[in-house]
């Protein structure tokens, strides 16, 4: 077990390293000159002179060959220095410190909301004998499955903020006022829902529904019933525990999907997270910031995958021994 954990962590580290190389390479291969972008942005869009570009390139160290630059970046990164943003000139770590917690908060809330709701709806769908209820859920999931995240976001925005003034439409608090738990919950509600109930929601419901539904008449569940166990035990231990393994195994990927959806959501709800930062960084060719954000996202997803693996291992001993069929 310990060995496995070490191996998983080593793999994760390797993945992060590989990811950084890929990002670096891709951005490097992209046409366009960050130095020119920076100068243009500083001069209000005026094309900069070649001399100024050359000077800035030298300053930014862009003229070294890519491996040298990568090594420089990586060795700094290992010491916790992710460089400075081309655009704002701030240390990337500072920007991350400002934005990542918000993204984590939003993503975590959406993950909880999405998975809790998927669990609830999936269980109802799997266990109910009422055809209308199941059909209703089917229909709901079908329609939801066709909704791009930003359409959901706009709908929520319209329904709860614009039309009814029930909830705040954006940001994390009223500007200038301290962030309170209460106010934060209010501001979190819409973006978290928008993120949680996108087109992928149905997949999780289906995972629960199929995982549990498949086991509803499984021999071991019948055995549990025929032994006269309390309903609670039958459902929780014998139906849900093994039935939720496929769902749990996908949590990691699910978190990844949600994180990918965070960009549009943050833009629509003015959420001060790294997604918005990423889009502006991408547009401005702010490579240090962009790479850092991609890596942080990768870390989140890898952490989520590890967590999911741990949960699966806790739920299903087969996973602990590395049997592939557990997933």
């Amino acid at each position, binding site marked *: 077990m310990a060995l496995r954990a070490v191996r998983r962590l080593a793999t994760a580290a390797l993945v992060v390293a590989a990811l950084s190389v890929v990002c670096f390479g*891709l951005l490097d291969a992209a*046409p366009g000159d960050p130095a020119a972008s920076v100068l243009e942005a500083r001069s209000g869009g005026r094309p900069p002179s070649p001399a100024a570009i050359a000077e800035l390139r030298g300053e930014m160290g862009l003229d070294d060959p890519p491996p040298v630059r990568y090594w420089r970046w990586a060795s700094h990164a290992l010491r916790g220095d992710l460089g400075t943003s081309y655009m704002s000139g701030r240390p990337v770590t500072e920007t991350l410190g400002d934005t990542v917690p918000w993204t984590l908060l939003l993503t975590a809330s959406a993950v909880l909301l999405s998975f809790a709701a998927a669990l609830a709806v999936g269980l109802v769908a799997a266990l109910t004998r009422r055809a209308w209820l199941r059909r209703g859920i089917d229909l709901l999931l079908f329609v939801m*499955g066709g909704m791009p995240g930003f359409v959901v976001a706009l709908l929520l925005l319209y329904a709860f903020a*614009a039309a009814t003034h029930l909830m705040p439409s954006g940001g994390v608090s009223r500007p200038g006022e301290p962030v309170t738990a209460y106010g934060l919950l209010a501001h979190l509600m819409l973006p978290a829902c928008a993120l949680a109930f996108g087109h992928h929601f149905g997949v999780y419901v289906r995972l629960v529904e199929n995982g549990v539904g498949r086991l509803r008449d499984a021999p071991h569940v019948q055995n549990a019933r025929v032994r006269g166990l309390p309903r609670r035990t039958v459902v929780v231990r014998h139906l849900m525990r093994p039935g939720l393994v496929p769902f749990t195994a996908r949590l990691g990927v699910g*978190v990844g*999907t949600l*994180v990918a959806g965070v*960009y549009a959501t943050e833009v629509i709800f003015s959420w001060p997270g790294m997604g918005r930062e990423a889009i502006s960084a*991408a547009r401005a060719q702010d490579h240090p910031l962009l790479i850092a954000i991609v890596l942080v996202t990768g870390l989140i997803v890898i952490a989520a995958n590890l967590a999911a693996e741990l949960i699966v291992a806790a739920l299903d001993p087969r996973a602990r021994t590395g049997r592939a069929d557990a997933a």
Partner: protein
Amino acid sequence: MPPDAPASAPARVRGLLAVRLWPRRPALAAAVAVLVALVLLAVLAPLLTSLDPVATDTSATSLKPGSPGHPLGTDLLGRDLWTRMLYGARTSLLVGLTAAAITVGLGVLIGGLAAIAPRWLDGLIARTADVLLALPLLVIVLALAAVAGPSLGLVVAAIALTSWMPVALIVRAELRGRRERLYVRAAYALGLSRWQVMWRHLLPGALPPVASIAAFEVGHAVLTESTLSFLGLGVPPNRPSWGNLLTEAQSHLLTGEWYTVAIPAAAVVVTIVAVNAVAGAVAGPSGEGGTW
């Protein structure tokens, strides 16, 4: 095999493609009809409207749906929404279908390779796909799009590059799963060659799930196109696509022109729902409902 196999036969039969379609047939028929209609509308767009999708008309701005000559109304600049929706369908469906085709082709190729590759290569491919699946490649695509400028080809490539993984993993799992099946062993025992077994037993068996995921991928591609366009990094801005229409109209949500948002949004949702319905029917009951 249970001793009372005949009794359980009906349940098994449902797993088979043809029979499985029965229970949902009305919904499926409706979905197929919707898709066929959409494709027809897109293909026949020039016959169905005489207007130019980008031509403005300052004398006919902000007309409500149902106005004479403008069945779906016009936007703030007097562009005919019906025309724009038709041409938008062309772009969106073109992107959706091409991207899905490339995605599926790539996925089948890589997944197939993984399935027959030696263990280390297979492991490498599977791990890579797992990792890529989890990572926000979209960001990198955004960066590339920002620099290279939007183009249809880039959108298609971006979608394909970021969505082949589930296809590959499913194909790989299907092929590997099937390779272990007894009937494959039986086929080898009949003296069939690898190629024959692959062609007659492995691939056809993997077809329904692949067909299903291919359908899902079409929906996914339409969806990604609209999201990319929404972020301003998708289809070239002035080219009508549903995503672009949504993006442009987005700011009218609260002003009088709500229908300029509602109509393309509805088109996207209806298309994906129909595609998913078809995909779900093709996948059969064991299909988990595809991608993300």
